[in-house]
């Protein structure tokens, strides 16, 4: 039977906890509540799909390095796909945010879901910004010299030097994607764990409004 030594193991305890919180039917559900019936719900999954495209096109650009796209037609096309993925990503994400706000989707213990989404949005702005700085063209020169004043004024400029291409490229392709992807993972896991917020309803009996 169960060996108490095994039961006490960190590994065992973690596995049981994950199994309890995320049973397979929650991670990969095959039904959802009947009130989930509006086009507004597709913008979440569209944001995710656009994020997949952003990462994929960014990886494609990474293969030949940061300046290849200036001298290759194929490279320029891949750069275009990266740009438009980002435009689609923000397009979908902002509509997703509007929709979730007007559904008050933080209700019922879902505040962490809302907050991780909001922080992902802010992180994405930083990720896109460092991307603009990493283009190695006129745009990145101008944006860097303009942005330095704002970022310096916050004090962050003393360590986050927007004029340092190498530093900005590293933030763009390593640090900020890691944070954005990590936050997105937590966000999606929370959505699966808590489910989609139910509609506003009448006050249930037995509670004080």
């Amino acid at each position, binding site marked *: 039977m169960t060996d108490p030594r095994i039961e006490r193991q960190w590994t065992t305890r973690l596995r049981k906890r994950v199994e309890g919180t995320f049973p397979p039917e929650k991670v990969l559900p095959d039904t959802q509540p009947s009130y989930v019936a509006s086009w507004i719900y*597709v913008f979440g999954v569209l944001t995710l799909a656009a994020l997949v495209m952003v990462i994929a096109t960014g990886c494609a650009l990474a293969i030949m390095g940061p300046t290849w796209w200036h001298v*290759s037609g194929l490279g320029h096309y891949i750069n275009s796909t990266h740009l438009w993925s980002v435009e689609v990503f923000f397009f979908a994400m902002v*509509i997703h945010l509007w929709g979730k706000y007007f559904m008050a989707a933080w209700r019922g213990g879902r505040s962490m879901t809302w907050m991780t989404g909001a922080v992902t949005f802010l992180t994405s702005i930083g990720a896109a910004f460092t991307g603009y700085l990493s283009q190695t063209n006129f745009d990145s020169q101008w944006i860097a010299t303009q942005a330095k004043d704002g970022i310096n004024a916050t004090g962050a400029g003393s360590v986050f030097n927007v004029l340092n291409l190498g530093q900005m490229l590293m933030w763009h392709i390593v640090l900020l994607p890691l944070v954005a992807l990590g936050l997105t993972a937590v966000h999606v896991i929370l959505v699966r764990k808590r489910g989609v917020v139910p509609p506003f309803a009448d006050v249930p009996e037995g509670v004080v409004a």
Partner: protein
Amino acid sequence: MVHPERFAALFNLSHPGHFISWGVLQVSYGNAVVIVLMVVAFVAALLLPFPGHRDKGGR
């Protein structure tokens, strides 16, 4: 050999932009189109009936 012209965009947007000025507001046509499309998509998402679920009320 890769020929750059094979990958050239169909419409050339690399010409000086146009801008809408309205008081203190200034926005490029490019950004304006994106913003208008976002609002349109949002409103459409709210109004269009979701397929597979016929509106029962029929109002």
